């Protein structure tokens, strides 16, 4: 099982319940705005602590309330592309990209910097500060930063929302290669039907629970 998730999250007054298992490949999360997709990714990344339940990825338990397991985010080795980019504002594009890259053993890296720059089309931005990037440029740098940290699985929250059609095609191909050649499990959030249908092995509906 790539993902084995059964948990309850509490955010403010909202309570969200998730329960699914997913085999290898890319799993798309599909659901209306506010259903809890980002919250789910946050919990898998270890940034939000579930009230109940367990989270396992590729057979490794990341969280289990009953067994008192709660891996720290930095031990989970996820590549998280945030919905809001979260580039480090005090570092250049270059040092943003290298942030995670420097923290893994060279042998574990599976994407070369040159290839990432080329496929994402961000080679000319290396010396810029994030505040000067356009929306799509920032988004592509965020994707690059996550991939270069050599994660063991990917969490992608609308990674292509403001990327133009041409780049989108290239990045989709890259994601497909990661999915098929490296066989990384991927949790993918998108509102774009076409994107989801092209990429996903399965679609998990995320429905809002009110209570």
């Amino acid at each position, binding site marked *: 099982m790539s993902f084995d998730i059964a948990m309850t999250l509490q955010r403010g007054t909202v309570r969200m319940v998730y329960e699914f298992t997913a085999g290898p490949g890319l799993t798309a999360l599909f659901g209306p705005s506010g259903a809890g997709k980002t919250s789910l990714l946050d919990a898998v990344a270890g940034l939000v602590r579930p009230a109940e339940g367990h989270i396992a990825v590729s057979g490794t338990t990341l969280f289990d309330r009953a067994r008192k397991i709660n891996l720290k985010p930095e031990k989970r080795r996820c590549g998280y592309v945030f919905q809001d980019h979260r580039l480090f504002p*005090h570092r250049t594009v270059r040092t943003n990209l290298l*942030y995670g890259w420097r923290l893994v053993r060279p042998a574990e890296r599976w994407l070369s910097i040159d290839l990432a720059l080329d496929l994402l089309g961000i080679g000319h931005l290396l010396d810029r500060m994030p505040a*000067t990037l356009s929306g799509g440029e920032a988004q592509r740098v965020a994707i690059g930063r996550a991939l270069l940290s050599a994660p063991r699985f990917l969490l992608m929250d609308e990674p292509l929302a403001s990327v133009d059609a041409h780049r989108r095609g290239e990045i989709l191909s890259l994601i497909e290669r990661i999915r098929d050649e490296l066989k990384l499990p991927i949790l993918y959030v998108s509102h774009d039907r076409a994107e989801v249908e092209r990429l996903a092995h399965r679609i998990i509906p995320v429905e809002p629970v009110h209570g």
Partner: protein
Amino acid sequence: MSGYTGGYMGWLSPEEWQVLLLSLKVSGVAITAVLPLAFALAWMLARWRFPGKVLLDAVVHLPLVLPPVVTGWLLLLTFGTNAPVGHFLSETIGLTFLFRWTGAALAAAVMALPLMVRAMRLSLETVDRRLENAARTLGAGPWRTFFTITLPLATPGIMAGLVLGLARSVGEFGATITFASNIPGETQTLPLAIYSALQLPGTELQVARLAGLSVLLSVSALALSEWLARRNAQGKDRHVL
């Protein structure tokens, strides 16, 4: 200032040099030594929730609230040779404060502390936790996250704290003369030299020169900090109307 020769207008007299260098040493050591403590306190106040937090906050502010003479007196009662803490420190690590430049530095550090803590805390509170979270998912542990994300993002507050603390320590008088006394060459910093000069009639020029030195010292620190801040802000351009 004992033995002031006067008349030597072109540059600084040896006594003025002595006072200036001592002030530099005292302030420099005080701020350097108290910086980690100030930051740790700022961190606790900004990030932690614990019972007695307001109390800790109040204690940190004490040197600001109490007249400096009282602070100096409390330091005497704590770090004097006859006092338990002072006795302990001098017996174990040979550190004595009374009548030593270390005492002047301690007084300066204590007085600068609240200003440094406040400024640093203010910056720490505005650091975006989501960026720290992003660093964690990229494999950085809490310490690395702290040093690569939190600390750089809090730089403006740390700089402001340093400048305030330094300025305050350069101007510190009441606690120093009460605790460390007014010994030329040992604890007579710029403000104490100014005090001494003020005790004598007709020393306006001398007072003005010494005050000018204080100002020079602080303006240099200020200019340096502004320059660092500007260098730091480069590239972070924003929409300008």
